């Protein structure tokens, strides 16, 4: 039985077309995976089903949900639908909950809006919903506030709100993108179980083919406001036909061609490094210190690409800042090219290390031109202006941009181009070591594949050494020779990448690998 039918849906926001003839179907008890890169219109399709759209949005076509024509309903009728017939789970659990209300009240609200039999009854049913979302009130009292829960727990509260009235359809818009990989696996299996138990239709929206592949019965691939291909999930292994979907699949599993690291001399030596953050000052003295990095030791050899994998809060960012000499360490030592690294170290030593950050939109001062942005590291090793100009042009060309891009401001570039500029900035002082801090995590898969190719090419051509920090095992597999796994401030496992990822020794590494969603193998692309 068809639960949701979207037929030739067009939508424009303030005259700007967003969806162009989207048609999708979803049956009760079925999981539909909607896949697309940013700007493909996948989230807008979901919001169109909910009819929670910006004021300037105009829809045409047909959306039939549980026999009702959503585009023909007035606002009160839509409010009666939302929460009762269709629930929604969002991407960002940290902001999706009202910070001033207890979680019990927020879940109970869904119930009271649609079926008010008093607060006591609503709270009882809220407790039931939270239990089904695996956040039982015995362990997580309903009087808690959102800030007292972790991201994964907050997402469970959002899910409990969405399923409290056992709706017919659940829409999950990138429900795990903001979560760690182990939490992601738990939330995905929770969603699958709830859909199965309630016979609920589940529309799972994601940029990640692997996430969808593990869960969906059918998939739909979207690009630029259109569904380019849809069918059973077995399409992924039996062969996609549309060129875009084939390219997307290829990019998701892309392995850049690399020469692999040579055995150079040790360039960075980290020994027993400990980094504590002092506890808060309170009226009774200081709270105990927080140990972010706990006795970490490793070497990086020249020309090598070393991966550092771990979930958020494991200390990898703190370690990065310590290696860059931005923060002091409490114990142990870091030596780079034989000299000690510390916040007061000399500029020549600093010039040997550069960094590329995760967010292509936050990595540049919006008021500077590209030439000045890329030339900023010359502060460490001043050169004559014409030399600097020449080197900036050289670096831009090395990352696949044009020298004439120097005159532009950063907002004129796309996310992928910005990440290339960030790499150019890291290259301009011709450093030996580049730290890549989640450098491709914010990019769409097709752009990510290109940037990975660029990084592989640069390291081969210029003999660069990389420390590649990431939460994403697929990316680490693609670009590193060796990998370290970090948990709670400690390195729990180190070894050649292929070996660690195929035959993990430490239980944590095993859990990480088990939790990571993978694409089914077949005659892919």
């Amino acid at each position, binding site marked *: 039985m068809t639960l949701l039918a979207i037929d030739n849906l067009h939508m424009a926001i303030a005259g700007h077309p967003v969806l162009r003839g989207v048609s999708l179907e979803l049956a009760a008890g079925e999981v539909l995976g909607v896949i697309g890169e940013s700007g493909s219109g996948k989230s807008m399709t979901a919001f169109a089903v909910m009819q929670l759209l910006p004021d300037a949005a105009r829809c045409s076509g047909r959306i039939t949900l549980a026999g009702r024509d959503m585009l023909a309903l007035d606002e009160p009728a839509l409010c009666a639908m939302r929460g009762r017939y269709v629930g929604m789970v969002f991407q960002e659990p940290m902001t999706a909950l009202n910070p001033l209300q207890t979680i019990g009240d927020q879940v109970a609200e869904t119930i009271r809006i649609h079926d008010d039999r008093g607060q006591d009854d609503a709270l009882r049913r809220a407790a039931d919903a939270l239990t089904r979302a695996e956040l039982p009130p015995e362990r997580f009292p309903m009087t808690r506030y959102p800030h007292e829960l972790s991201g994964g727990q907050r997402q469970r509260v959002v899910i409990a709100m969405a399923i409290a009235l056992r709706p017919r359809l659940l829409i999950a818009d990138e429900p795990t993108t903001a979560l760690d990989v182990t939490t992601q696996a738990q939330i995905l299996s929770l969603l699958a179980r709830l859909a199965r138990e309630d016979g609920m239709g589940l529309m799972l929206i994601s940029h990640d083919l692997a996430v969808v592949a593990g869960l969906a019965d059918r998939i739909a691939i979207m690009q630029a406001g259109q569904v380019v291909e849809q069918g059973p999930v077995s399409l992924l292994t039996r062969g996609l036909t549309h060129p875009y979907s084939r390219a997307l699949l290829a990019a998701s599993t892309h392995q850049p061609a690399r020469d692999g690291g040579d055995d150079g001399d040790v360039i960075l030596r980290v020994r027993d490094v400990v980094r504590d953050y002092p506890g808060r000052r309170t009226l009774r003295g200081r709270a105990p210190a927080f140990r972010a990095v706990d006795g970490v030791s490793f070497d990086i050899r020249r020309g090598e690409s070393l991966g550092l994998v771990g979930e958020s809060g494991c200390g990898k960012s703190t370690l990065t800042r310590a290696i*860059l000499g*931005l923060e002091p360490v409490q114990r142990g030592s870091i030596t780079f090219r034989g000299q000690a690294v510390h916040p007061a170290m000399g*500029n020549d030593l*600093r010039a040997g290390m550069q*960094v590329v950050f995760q967010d292509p939109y936050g990595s540049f*001062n*919006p008021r500077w031109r590209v030439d000045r942005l890329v030339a900023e590291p010359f*502060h460490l090793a001043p050169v004559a202006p014409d030399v600097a100009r020449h080197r900036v042009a050289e670096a831009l060309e090395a990352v696949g941009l044009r020298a004439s891009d120097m005159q532009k401001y950063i907002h004129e570039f796309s996310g992928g181009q910005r990440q290339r500029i960030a790499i150019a900035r890291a290259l301009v002082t011709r450093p030996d070591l580049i730290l890549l801090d989640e450098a491709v995590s914010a990019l769409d898969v097709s752009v990510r594949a290109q940037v990975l190719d660029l990084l592989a090419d640069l390291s081969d051509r210029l003999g660069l050494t990389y420390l590649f920090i990431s939460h994403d095992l697929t990316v680490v597999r693609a670009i590193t020779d060796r990998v370290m796994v970090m948990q709670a401030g400690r390195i729990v496992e180190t070894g050649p990448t292929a070996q660690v990822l195929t035959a993990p020794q430490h239980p944590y590494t095993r859990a990480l690998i088990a939790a990571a969603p993978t694409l089914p193998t077949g005659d892919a692309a």
Partner: protein
Amino acid sequence: MIAFRLGLFLVLVVLGAAAVSLVWVPQDVGAMAIANKLKPPTLAHPMGTDHFGRDVLSMIMVGARTSIAVALVAVGIGMGVGVPLGLAAAANRGGWLDEIIMRGNDLVFAFPSLVIAILITATFGPSAVNAILAIGIFNIPVFARVTRGAALSLWTRDWVMAARVAGKGRVRISVEHILPNVANLLIVQGTIQFSLGILAEAGLSYVGLGAQPPTPSWGRMLAESQTMISFAPHLAIFPGLAILFTVLGLNLLGDGLRDALDPRLRRSR
């Protein structure tokens, strides 16, 4: 956009009137003509005459200079001291310098500008300089707070981290990276404080803590008109309208500037 243009127009009229008054006014404000006193508005005197027979329009034009000068210098003091303090506090977030600056701010905030003016007047006697100082001191924590707030969020950006990786120190980053990115906000806050300064100057002059005779001032014109309001209401209406339109113009201008400048700031946030 209409509001912005209206604001710009009003501000230009006031600035123009003040500038013209430097070289020409319809009638010398020092010249008294008792025979001509308390005349309602006529063609010869578009805003009437006061109890000494002086032309009200001329006095308003000259009074604009006082208002603008006091408010402008007060904004200058507030920005000149407050912005560096705010930048320094943000650069040393959570440190003792930040703590001292913010506690100092809280303390100054506890003294409304009128109270500062009262203290200064009680000590040194009334004058326009007092008004400038009082409003200026009150502006310092305003600018310090706005600067610090905006700068704190900028300090968490990756591009500031990139500058640190490039070996730049806190002072250099504050000047090269932070200041240009808070400039828009400061321009907007500057127009707001400018208009508040006009209001504050008028209030202080009205109670006799601002500009002293014979310096013409809108606030004192209102104070002098008060006893005559029942038979010469024009004496109260025109200076009040002058203040109203000046402040309105500045506020509309500030809002327009914010709308024009802010989207960029929002997007990069």
